[in-house]
C-alpha cells in the first residue's frame, strides 16, 4: 500500500501548477503585444506600465495600413510566399513520389543530398545570390526572392511529401498501372488526389517558412516596394523613435496568418514533421 502511494510523487496540483506556469510563460508576451497594440502612444510610455489599456483604441492598426505601407508589405509577403509554396510543393511531390516508389542506384545518396541541403545555412548562399541575381536583373524583385526561398522550401517539401506519399499503399499504383494508366497518370490521378490533405499541409508549411524569413529579404531587396512584413518589422529597430503600439500592431498582424494556419493544421503538421522519423 505504501509503495502504491509513493509511486504518485507528482500529485494533480503540482502538475496543473506546472502547466499553468508554462502557459503563463508562453502567453504573457502575446498578451503584452495585444495590450500595447491597443494603447495610445502616450500610454505605451507610462511608468509603471499598464497591462489593460486605460483607453483602448485601434488607432495603431489603422496607422499601420494608412501611414505605413503595411498593405504593400503584406501583399509582397503573401505573393512571394504563396508562389514559393506552390512551386516547392509541386517539385517536392514529384521527387517525394520518386523516392517513395522507386528503388534505384544512388537513391540513398540522393536522399542524403536532399537532407544535407536542408542543413545548409542561408548565410552561405546570400553572397553569391546577391551577385548572381544582380547580374540577371533579379535583385530586388519578387521573382528573385521566390528563387531564393526555394532553397529553404524545396528540400523540406520533398521530405514532407515523401512522408505523406509513403502512407499511400503501393497496391493502388500497381492496380492503376495494370489498368493501363501511365506512371505520370498514376501520380496525377491517383497519388495527388489521395494525398491532397498532405499537399495542403506542405503548401501551408512552406508558405510559413517563406513568410517568416528575414535573412533573404534583408539581403536581396533594397526598395520600399519590395519590403515584406518581416523586413518591415525588423527595419524599425534602427529607427530613432519607435512607436511601439504601431509596431506591436504590425507584429500581431504579421504573426496572425501563422497562428491561424497552425491552429487549423496542428495534426497534419505533427504528421509531416515526424514523417520519416517514426515508422509505424
Amino acid at each position, binding site marked *: 500500500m505504501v509503495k502504491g502511494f509513493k509511486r504518485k510523487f507528482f500529485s494533480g496540483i503540482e502538475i496543473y501548477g506546472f502547466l499553468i506556469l508554462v502557459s503563463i510563460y508562453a502567453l504573457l508576451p502575446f498578451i503584452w503585444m495585444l495590450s500595447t497594440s491597443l494603447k495610445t502612444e502616450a500610454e505605451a510610455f507610462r511608468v509603471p506600465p499598464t497591462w489593460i489599456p486605460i483607453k483602448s483604441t485601434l488607432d495603431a492598426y489603422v496607422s499601420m495600413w494608412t501611414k505605413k505601407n503595411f498593405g504593400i508589405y503584406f501583399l509582397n509577403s503573401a505573393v512571394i510566399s504563396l508562389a514559393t509554396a506552390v512551386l516547392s510543393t509541386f517539385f517536392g511531390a514529384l521527387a517525394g513520389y520518386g523516392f517513395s516508389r522507386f528503388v534505384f542506384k544512388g537513391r540513398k545518396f540522393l536522399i542524403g543530398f536532399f537532407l544535407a541541403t536542408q542543413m545548409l545555412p542561408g548565410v552561405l548562399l546570400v553572397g553569391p545570390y546577391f551577385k548572381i541575381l544582380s547580374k540577371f536583373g533579379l535583385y530586388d524583385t519578387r521573382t528573385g526572392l521566390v528563387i531564393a526561398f526555394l532553397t529553404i522550401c524545396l528540400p523540406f517539401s520533398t521530405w514532407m511529401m515523401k512522408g505523406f506519399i509513403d502512407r499511400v499503399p503501393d497496391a493502388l499504383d500497381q492496380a492503376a498501372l495494370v489498368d493501363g494508366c501511365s506512371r505520370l497518370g498514376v501520380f496525377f490521378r491517383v497519388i495527388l488526389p489521395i494525398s491532397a490533405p498532405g499537399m495542403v499541409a506542405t503548401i501551408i508549411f512552406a508558405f510559413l517558412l517563406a513568410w517568416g524569413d528575414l535573412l533573404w529579404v534583408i539581403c536581396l531587396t533594397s526598395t520600399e516596394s519590395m519590403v515584406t512584413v518581416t523586413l518591415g518589422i525588423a527595419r524599425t529597430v534602427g529607427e530613432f523613435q519607435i512607436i511601439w503600439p504601431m509596431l506591436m500592431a504590425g507584429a500581431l498582424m504579421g504573426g496572425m496568418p501563422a497562428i491561424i494556419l497552425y491552429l487549423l493544421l496542428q495534426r497534419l503538421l505533427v504528421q509531416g514533421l515526424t514523417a520519416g522519423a*517514426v515508422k509505424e
Partner: protein
Amino acid sequence: MKLLKIKDRHMWTLFVLPGTILLVLVLGFPAFQSILYSIYPEGGGTSYTLNNYSILFSDSVFRQVFGNTVLFVILSVASHLLLGLGVALVLNREIFAKPVFRLIALLPWVVPDVVVGIIWRWMFDPVYGAFNDLLLRIGLISTHVQWLSSPKLALLSVIFVNLWRGFPFVMLILLAGLQSIPRVLYEAAAIDGASRWQLFARITLPSLKKMLVVALALDIVWEVRRFGLIQTMTQGGPGNITEVLSTYIYKQYFQFFRFEYASAVAVIMTAALLMVSLPYIWMISQEE
C-alpha cells in the same frame, strides 16, 4: 503481399531529377560559388589564396563570435530539451483541457522569428517594458534591469527568449513519440512492481531515443542558423556580446562588403554544421 511489378524502373528519373536539378541550380551552384569567393584574395587579385582563412583564425572578434554561437546553441538546445520533455511528459497524461494547454504551449513556436524578437525587445525595455514591471511587482528585483544592453546579461537574455521560442518544437516531437509507446508496456512493468522512476528510465527514455535524436539534430541546425531573432532584438550588440555567426556574416557581407572574408566564415560555419548533422543525415538516409 508481393504484387506484380510493372517494368518501369527508369521512370524514377522523371520524378526525382527535376527537383534534384533545381536544387543543384539554386543551392549547389551558389554554395560552390561561396567556396570560390572564400579563396579569392580580398580586394581583388587573380591567384587563389588561403589568406582569408588565416586572417579569420587570428581574428579575436571571429573567435568571440564563434564562442558566442557555441554557447548560444548549447544552452538553447539543452534548455529546449529539458522544458520540452517536461511539458511533453505532463501533456501525455490524462489531464483536464489537454488540447488547450498543448495549443498554448505551441504558440511561441508558431510566429515568425522577427515577431518573437520584437515582442521580447519591448518586453525587455528597462523602463516601459513588461518584464521588469512584473519582476518588480513580484519582488524578484529591486531596480530596473538592462536585460539587453548590459554586457553581462545580454547573451543570457537572448538565450532566455530562444528558450521560449524553441521548446514547443521539442515538446511536439517528443509528445508524438510518447503517444506511440504502447500502454501495455507500462501495465506489464507496473504489475511486476516497477517504480515510476524505473518506468521512465527503462521504458519511456529508451522508446524516445529515436525522437530525441531527431529533435536534437533539427534543433541544433536551427539554432546555429538563427538570424531574425537576434537581428531584431540586439543586432549583435552591445559590442559583439550577442553576435552569432549568422549575424556576423551578414554584417561582413552587407555592411562592410568584405565578400571574401564573409564567405570564408560562412564556409567554416557550414563545415561545422555539416559535421554535427552528418551522423543524423546518415542515419535517416540508411533507413529509407
